[in-house]
Structure formats: structure tokens, C-alpha cells
């Protein structure tokens, strides 16, 4: 047993051993209850917030602190360049892995990769995908989507459709959500989805959309390299 070697709590040990421990505990604690008692005793008195002890009155004027604070803000005012971007003229790039609007991918001949398996429609938790299946006009597959619509107002940008797709045909790009003035415009049809991520958007991300090249963007304020 190791217990006897440890210093015991003041309350548990006998009177002979208390002297040192209790003395220490009391000296530390005695001030506190007394202060509380005083506050309770005079209910109408405003709680006096005593300045921290050990400071001379010169220090408690806080003139030096105020001056240094003013100097700091002045430095910010004159020397520091603002951190913010001039949105919307300047925009920070999104993380290439950010989930924005969808794109229907196409192969080298401009045909959509989709084979209308309906897995994305099944996987979608918000039921925003509507596919009309038809026989494929091309020999390398049996079916293709005659119509492919996504209701962007219903979509929650979870990316499950992308996970479900067996032939890498649907993908969430970092393109942020668009704004229109009528609800119909939010229902993207096949043509719009195929061209939803034009070239200038591609150029925004050096690694190309959807590909993670280099370290991910962490979005920490203060990274000046992101401000153009």
C-alpha cells in the first residue's frame, strides 16, 4: 500500500497531522469567505470590483496601456493592409473538393457518360433528381437519359449521387449556388447540367475541378497569398 506516503487531505487525518496542511488551506481560503460575507451583508451596496492587488496607482491609471492600445490600432490603421477581399470583384477560390452545383460529365465525343441506371436518383435523400430513361442511340450502352433534371432548390448538396454513380458521370463542382428570380430556373435540365461548369470556372482551380492537387485550401483568415 502506498497510501500513507501521500499527503492526506486535511479533513481526513487526525489533529496531530493537520497543523501544516490545515494552516496552508486556511490561509488560502480565509480571504475568500470573508469577502463573500461582506458582499452578502450589504445588499444595497454596489459590488465593488477591487483592482487587482499589487498595483500602484500609477499603474492603475492604465495610461501606458491605453497609449499602447492606441498605438496598436494606429499601426493597423496606417500600416496594415486590409485582410478582406473585395467581394464580389475579388473572390476567394473554393476548396476544389467543395460541393457546389452538379455537372453531368461527357466523354471525348461529347456524349454524356450517364447510362441511366437511376442509382443517383435512388441515392438522393431529397429526391431532387428526375431521370427519363430511353434506349441509347449509341452502340456501347443500352440506355441513356432522355431527360435529366435536378431541382437545385431541393438539392442539399450532399454528394450521395456522386458516390452512387458507377460510371463517374455526375459530379459536384465547387461552383457556388446560383441565384435566380424564379423557381423554374432552378430546375436544371440535361443541357444545362452538361455545360454547368464552363471553362473560366475551370481555370479558377489550378488542379482542375474535382481533383485534389496539392494541400487543400484551409480557409484561414490571414493567408495573404489567396488575395489577388
Amino acid at each position: 500500500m502506498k497510501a500513507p506516503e501521500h499527503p492526506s487531505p486535511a479533513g481526513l487525518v487526525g489533529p496531530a497531522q493537520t497543523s501544516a496542511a490545515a494552516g496552508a488551506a486556511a490561509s488560502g481560503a480565509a480571504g475568500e469567505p470573508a469577502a463573500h460575507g461582506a458582499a452578502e451583508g450589504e445588499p444595497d451596496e454596489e459590488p465593488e470590483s477591487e483592482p487587482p492587488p499589487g498595483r500602484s496607482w500609477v499603474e492603475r491609471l492604465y495610461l501606458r496601456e491605453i497609449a499602447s492600445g492606441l498605438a496598436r490600432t494606429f499601426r493597423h490603421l496606417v500600416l496594415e493592409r486590409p485582410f478582406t477581399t473585395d467581394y464580389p470583384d475579388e473572390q476567394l477560390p473554393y476548396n476544389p473538393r467543395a460541393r457546389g452545383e452538379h455537372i453531368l460529365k461527357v466523354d471525348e465525343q461529347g456524349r454524356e457518360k450517364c447510362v441511366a441506371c437511376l442509382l443517383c436518383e435512388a441515392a438522393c435523400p431529397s429526391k431532387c433528381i428526375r431521370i427519363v430513361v430511353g434506349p441509347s442511340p449509341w452502340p456501347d450502352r443500352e440506355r441513356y437519359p432522355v431527360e435529366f433534371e435536378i431541382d437545385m432548390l431541393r438539392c442539399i448538396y450532399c454528394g450521395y449521387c456522386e458516390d452512387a454513380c458507377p460510371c463517374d458521370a455526375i459530379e459536384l463542382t465547387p461552383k457556388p449556388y446560383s441565384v435566380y428570380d424564379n423557381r423554374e430556373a432552378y430546375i436544371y435540365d440535361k443541357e444545362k447540367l452538361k455545360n454547368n461548369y464552363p471553362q473560366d470556372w475551370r481555370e479558377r482551380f489550378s488542379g482542375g475541378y474535382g481533383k485534389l492537387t496539392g494541400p487543400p485550401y484551409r480557409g484561414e483568415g490571414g493567408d495573404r497569398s489567396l488575395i489577388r
Partner: protein
Amino acid sequence: MSIWALLVIVGILLIVLHIPPGMIWAERKVAARIQGRWGPTRVGPFGLLQPLADAVKLLTKEEVIPRGAERPLYYMGPLLAFVPGALALAVVPFGHDMRVGDTVIQLQIADLHVGVLFVLALTSLAVYGLAFGGWSSDSKYPLLGGLRSSAQMVSYEVALGLAVVAVIMSAGTVSIREMVLAQQELLFGFLPAWNVFFQPVAALIFLVAAFAENNRLPFDMPEAEAELVGGYHTEYSGMKFGMFFLGEYVAMTVMSAVMVSLFFGGWGLPGLTDPHDTSVGNALVSAAVFLVKVAALLFFYIWVRWTLPRFRYDQLMRLGWKVLIPLALANVVVTGLFGVL
């Protein structure tokens, strides 16, 4: 009343009415740059037309009046916050006299021989705007804001007045015009004989009390947005809110102008202005010097606002009653002793 006096009045009015928009712009710009932002950039070059956009917004905004509001006082609040403060500028000299032909024009609306007291009297009225506005809104936050403002302003008025008393004692006059004239000489050949060098304690007390009188951070208890939503003007909208806003900036301008006149030599700057010269050029230069000084103090207001945190209410009262007022009293006594010796 001569045509010249009328011109001076109109000119001063124009200047004074243009300070608040400039202040709004400066406040937003300085605040933004201190916080690492750009501030207004969209409206006009450097966002300079932003105050105009703000004004248009305030004027065209719907005015919502709380159902339980006491209408007459509710309407009076913004007016009382704005008008008395602006009136106080009547006794502040904006520049040195200028002689056109045979007439000597004072760049001052009225040279009252109770000058400083007139300013104190009118600025002490500004509290009614906040108190009435706060009370008549029939809402708890404005009521608390109004209560705080009346307690705070009455407390700090005492310190402000006592600081001014010391200056009056050392200057030997109550007229602001004569005080400014008395500060035009040089001290030891290089230091301008400004009162701030004779009365540094009074200047410090006046500065602190002026911040409290104008409800500016670190003493903006009456609006303390973190705890009182907007304080006394919570229930105000549209141009009535705008009047409170303007009133605050006009009051700051008045305080700065008075402080420049009392402590920082008014329109004078040794080397630039000549107190014995009454030419038009000298007068215009002196007016420019005065405005630059006022602008510097107004910048200081903004600068402090975005640097210091807000005081707690009991700290504010303790500072006012237990530090500033005894200090100001002691300062008066010491000044008196110097005067006797």
C-alpha cells in the same frame, strides 16, 4: 445685423452641417482599417458618397412608432438631441477677425461674455433628448438607456464644469474669444501658450468627461448595444433615428471645437497665424487651422472608440465621482493657490 454677420452664420452653419456626414464616413473608414477591413468602397471614390447613400436610406425608410409610445415626447426626443448641441457653436470663434474695408468681421456668431457657460448650459440640455426618447418609447431597453444617460451626463457634467472652472480661473475670463486671444503668445520662445500646458489636468479631465458627455466609447453606456440593443434609440427608425445620429456627431463637433478653443489655442498656430494681423488671408488661414484642429480631435474620438473597451456602469460612476470630480476640485484649488501667489 449686418450682411456680414449673416454670411458668417450661414458659413458656420454650412461647415457644421457638413461635419457629421464626413464623420460618418471617417468613422466607418477608420473603424474598418483598424479592424483590417476596407470599409465603404462602393459609393463614389473611396466610398466618399456613402453618407449620402445613408441619408437617402434613412429618409426613405419606413418610420415605425411603437404603439405605446408617448407621441409628443417621442417626436421631441430627436429634436432635443440635435438642436441645443448645434446652438452651442454660436459662441465658438472659428477664426481670427478679418477686416474688409472698414468693417471688422468676427468669424464667430456671438461673442457672449458668458461664453463657456453658454456652451455648458446648452450641452447639458442634450440629455433631455436621450431621456425623453428613452422614456417615451414604451420599451424597457430605451428606458434603461435613457436612465443611464441622465445619470451619466449629470455626473460627468460636474467634472466637465469643474475642469472649465480651473481654465476660467487661470484665463481670468469666461469669454471664449478672449481665452483664444490669450493663447496666441509664445511660451519660452518655442511653446505655444496653450492652456493645455498650463492646465494639463483640466485638459485630461475635460477630455474624459467630454467622451462621457457625448456617450462615446469607452463611455457609451446609454446605448451599450451588447446589453441594451440600441439603448435610447432602439425604437426609433428612419430620419428620427438619423437625428439622434446627427445629434451625436454635432455634439462631438461642439465638444471638439470648445476643447480646441479652451485648451489648444483655438484658431492660432504660431508661425502660421498672426494675432495682430486682421487681413482676410490671415483670417482664412486661422479658420483652416481651427478646422484642422477640430478634425484632429474628432479623429481622436473615432480612434479611441475602436481601441478601448466599454466601461461597466459601476466603473463609470466610480471614475466620475471618486476620481474625476475630486481631481477636478483639487485642480481648482491648486489653480486658485497659484492665482493667489
